[in-house]
């Protein structure tokens, strides 16, 4: 199973290289990998159906008990087969859809990574492994929604999806940790082994709530549903694969996975059933506002996801088998519907269903596929969708309010099916299609086979039931199940409800246009509800960041530095005063004449710095202070420190001098700026005094040589080096160094970007001050914030050099 997951990542590495050479055969070739995975999974059908469970575990982080553990039971197999089979169809389809797209290599890389990660999610038997793959699917989804990154809607949709699913993912991680710590293991199968103990433990409710947050955000449950319709900015293969058939079902999978251990309680029922029903009803109503084929399909996906969560909440044998059948049916009809919508989009140049009509004559195959899928979506016999819907009604018979929501939602599904699969194809041709004609083989073979699957399993549902639904339901309920499925159940209550649904759906369909128009008029422009809340909180975050930046890091570099220094002085000062452990009996110092001379030099240079009128002389004399300190290091036999200090001081003077050349040559002391001096002066004096006091206090204590002695002793035997400073940098604390050079590289890249953005460097200050260079502008000199960057970054690198 590890190999199954890894093969997807291997494909992700190879795909970008092969996309170019393979040309239009790329999609067909890449489809071999998910195809092969499907064959392997199919070959396990018999074993799993007979109750066997395959498992495999590779140690990953043994110290904290994390394993790359995988497990294949009925539930995993159902999901894995869905992922690999639809993945095969989507790969082939994407090869046709993206023909001639220059970014296709990137697309196949992301799509393959997603497939591998998604397989990882459903096969994982370790909470941490599951979490890592889960986040990978969020991440690949982000990149795939933002595939056409030139469009703002793509970027916003991608970010929204990522923010919502990833924050839910973090909550889920917290839930996983609660579960793992409580159970003492991260193995999912072991945690769920004792349901009674698990549901009775105090950790149960918090863990359930956190897990549900993860599942609800991923599976777009109300009120987190807002991201899914906006994810339709992604290319159609992505919508068909990630945002209808697989990724959005990860939340459903998680709930189904933990159901045998955590399900069956009142909390479980109310949480899931209410969220699921709310999602169904909200999506059914909101769908009326839509006229874009893909967005309509997205709302129908929301309905299906709500139904699945509701069914899992109800649970038991009926809930489990209804959920699984409904889900397989949904995957088999929704992916083809999306792909056909993509074909229509490509051929006709629009997805607005009010502007589409009469395409059927030119695209007969696509129409046939759409019809077959839509009949299943509408829950009409003899397709699998009908079986799934009947089972759902049966499971919900005792929960009236959820049943009512389900009927309404099913009626909406019927209307959406009609809008997407009948309206664009039937009737009179409104306008000549852009490209005309049928889609190529690669773009209808996949959906055709999936839709045919919906028909075949509709006619012979027991075939599917014995292979997947029974083993799957056994895994969800935690008890071995045995049942048959049939298309025809006889005249019973669910059938009557189906008839009622059909009537409602037809009525809704007939009344669609006036209903749609009036709802759009009335509510189309409104920006409230969860979507508005998302926008408002995002805008609020930005406003808060801007406010605190203005307050703490104003554009004036001196104010900025003053704030930092003042805070540091205040924090250290308060600590020192509160602890009150200062002692002053430093060891007597017998300095040599050289040392006193260097000290004199430093003092003189410091005085010059403070009294300097021009920036250039200030920075140069500050360099002399640094050189004096370096000389002291030399005198006290610290060659590494001395060399570093010399070099850093030199380079700082050079870099700051270059920065200063970009600024107008104004003076440091201007009449208008005196107020700042009365702040800066005291802060500097108090800071200097505080540091002196601290140094003296430190010297008054006996030197603790434990660390020095350790490095002294261990440096050569353990790290083969005699220069302790260097050995610490590159061996003992190499991870710190790696972090520091990464920070340095990022800082340099950022400084580079900022400096490049200012464009003509010498022009800007003049432009802002409106005065010729060299003149003393009375209004106070403008300091472009961008030029602050290098100095502050450089000072940070200087700080690191000294640590």
């Amino acid at each position, binding site marked *: 199973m590890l190999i199954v997951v890894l093969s997807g990542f291997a494909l992700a590495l190879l795909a970008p290289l092969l996309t170019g050479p393979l040309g239009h055969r790329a999609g067909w070739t890449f489809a071999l990998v998910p195809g092969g995975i499907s064959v392997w999974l199919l070959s396990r059908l018999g074993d799993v159906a007979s109750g066997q469970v395959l498992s495999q575990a590779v140690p990953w982080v043994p110290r904290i008990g994390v394993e790359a553990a995988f497990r294949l039971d009925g539930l995993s197999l159902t999901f894995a087969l869905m992922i690999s089979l639809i993945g095969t169809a989507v790969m082939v389809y994407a090869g046709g859809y993206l023909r001639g797209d220059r970014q296709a290599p990137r697309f196949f890389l992301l799509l393959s990574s997603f497939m591998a990660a998604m397989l990882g999610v459903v096969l994982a038997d370790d909470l941490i492994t599951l979490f890592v793959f889960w986040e990978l699917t969020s991440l690949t989804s982000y990149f795939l929604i933002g595939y056409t990154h030139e469009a703002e809607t793509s970027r916003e949709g991608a970010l929204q999806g990522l923010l919502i699913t990833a924050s839910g993912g973090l909550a889920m991680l917290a839930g996983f940790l609660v579960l793992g710590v409580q159970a003492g293991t991260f193995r999912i199968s072991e945690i769920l082994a004792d349901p009674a103990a698990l549901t009775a433990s105090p950790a149960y409710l918090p863990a359930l709530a956190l897990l549900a947050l993860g599942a609800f955000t991923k599976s777009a449950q109300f009120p987190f549903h807002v991201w899914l319709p906006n994810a339709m900015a992604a290319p159609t293969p992505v919508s068909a694969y990630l945002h209808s058939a697989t990724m959005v079902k990860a939340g459903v999978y998680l709930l189904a996975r933990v159901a045998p251990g955590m399900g069956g309680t009142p909390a479980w029922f109310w949480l899931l059933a209410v969220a699921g029903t709310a999602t169904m009803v909200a999506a059914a109503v909101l769908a009326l506002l839509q006229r874009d084929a893909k967005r309509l399909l997205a709302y129908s996906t929301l309905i299906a996801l709500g139904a699945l969560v509701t069914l899992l909440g109800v649970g038991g044998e009926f809930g489990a088998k209804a959920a699984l059948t409904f889900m397989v049916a949904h995957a088999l009809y929704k992916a083809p519907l999306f792909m056909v919508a993509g074909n229509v989009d490509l051929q006709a140049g629009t997805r607005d269903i009010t502007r589409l009509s009469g395409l059927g004559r030119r695209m007969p195959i696509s129409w046939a596929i759409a019809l077959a899928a839509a009949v299943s979506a509408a829950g009409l016999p003899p397709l699998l969708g009908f079986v799934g819907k009947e089972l759902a009604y049966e499971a919900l018979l005792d929960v009236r309010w959820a049943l009512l929501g389900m009927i309404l939602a099913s009626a909406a599904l019927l209307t959406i099916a009609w809008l997407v699969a009948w309206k664009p194809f039937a009737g009179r041709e409104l306008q000549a299609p852009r490209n005309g004609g049928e889609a190529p083989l690669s773009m209808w073979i996949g959906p055709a086979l999936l839709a045919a699957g919906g028909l075949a399993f509709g006619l012979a549902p027991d075939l599917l039931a014995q292979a997947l639904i029974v083993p799957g339901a056994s895994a969800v309920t935690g008890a071995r199940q045995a049942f048959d499925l049939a298309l025809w159940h006889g005249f019973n209550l669910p059938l009557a409800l189906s008839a009622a649904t059909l009537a409602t759906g037809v009525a809704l369909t007939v009344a669609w246009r006036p209903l749609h128009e009036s709802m759009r008029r009335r509510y189309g422009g409104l920006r409230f509800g969860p979507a508005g809340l998302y926008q408002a909180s995002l805008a609020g975050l930005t406003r808060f960041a801007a406010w605190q930046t203005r307050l703490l890091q104003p554009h004036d570099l001196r104010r900025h530095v003053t704030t930092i220094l003042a805070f540091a002085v205040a924090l250290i000062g308060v600590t020192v005063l509160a602890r009150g452990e200062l002692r002053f009996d430093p060891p007597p110092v017998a300095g040599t004449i050289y040392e006193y001379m260097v000290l004199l030099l430093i003092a003189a240079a410091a005085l010059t710095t403070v009294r300097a009128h021009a920036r250039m002389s200030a920075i140069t004399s500050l360099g002399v202070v640094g050189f004096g300190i370096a000389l002291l290091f030399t005198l006290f036999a610290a*060659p*590494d420190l001395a*060399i*570093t200090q010399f*070099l*850093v001081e*030199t*380079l700082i003077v*050079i*870099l700051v001098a*270059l*920065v200063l050349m*970009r600024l107008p040559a104004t003076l440091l002391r201007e009449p208008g700026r005196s107020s700042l001096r009365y702040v800066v002066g005291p802060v500097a004096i108090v800071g200097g005094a505080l540091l002196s006091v601290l140094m003296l206090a430190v010297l008054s204590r006996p030197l603790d040589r434990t660390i020095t002695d350790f490095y002294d002793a261990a440096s050569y035997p353990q*790290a*083969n*080096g*005699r*220069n302790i*400073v*260097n*050995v610490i*940098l*590159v*061996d003992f604390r*190499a*991870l710190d*160094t*790696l972090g520091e*050079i*990464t920070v*340095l*590289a990022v*800082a*340099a*890249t950022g*400084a*580079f970007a900022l*400096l*490049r953005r200012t464009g*003509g*460097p*010498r022009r800007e200050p003049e432009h802002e001050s409106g005065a010729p260079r060299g003149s003393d502008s009375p209004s106070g000199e403008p300091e472009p914030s961008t030029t602050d960057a*290098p100095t502050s*970054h*450089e000072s940070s*690198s200087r700080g690191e*050099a000294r640590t």
Partner: protein
Amino acid sequence: MNSLILRTATRLLLTVLLLFSLFLLLRGHDLPGGGFIGGLVAAAALALYAIAYDSDAAARLLRISPRRLLGVGLASSALAGLLAGAFGYDFLTGMWWTVEIAGTRLKLSTPLLFDIGVYLVVIGVILTMLFALEEH
């Protein structure tokens, strides 16, 4: 800066300084020196060249973009850490090989590779900023 004396001296100094920076880098594990200091010396040498001539001339002398140095440096430091993993040790475990070439014993190690990465990053950081500031 158009100074004949500085330019002539720079040409001589540049070679010496660059060799000295390599010397500092390679001996750093046992004696004062190391990738950080070596990188600073090399960057200072090129900064001197950039002052004596101009930053374009220094960029031409360097041949590759300093930003690329950042990437190469980070990559070699990370690789030094990952190499240990290939032999089954923890990330960043130091590994040593002694090689005899023409009678000289060479200590090759992943810490050395790591230090070379630090060396390149330091050069890259300073020159990236320097060139960006000097660019007009």
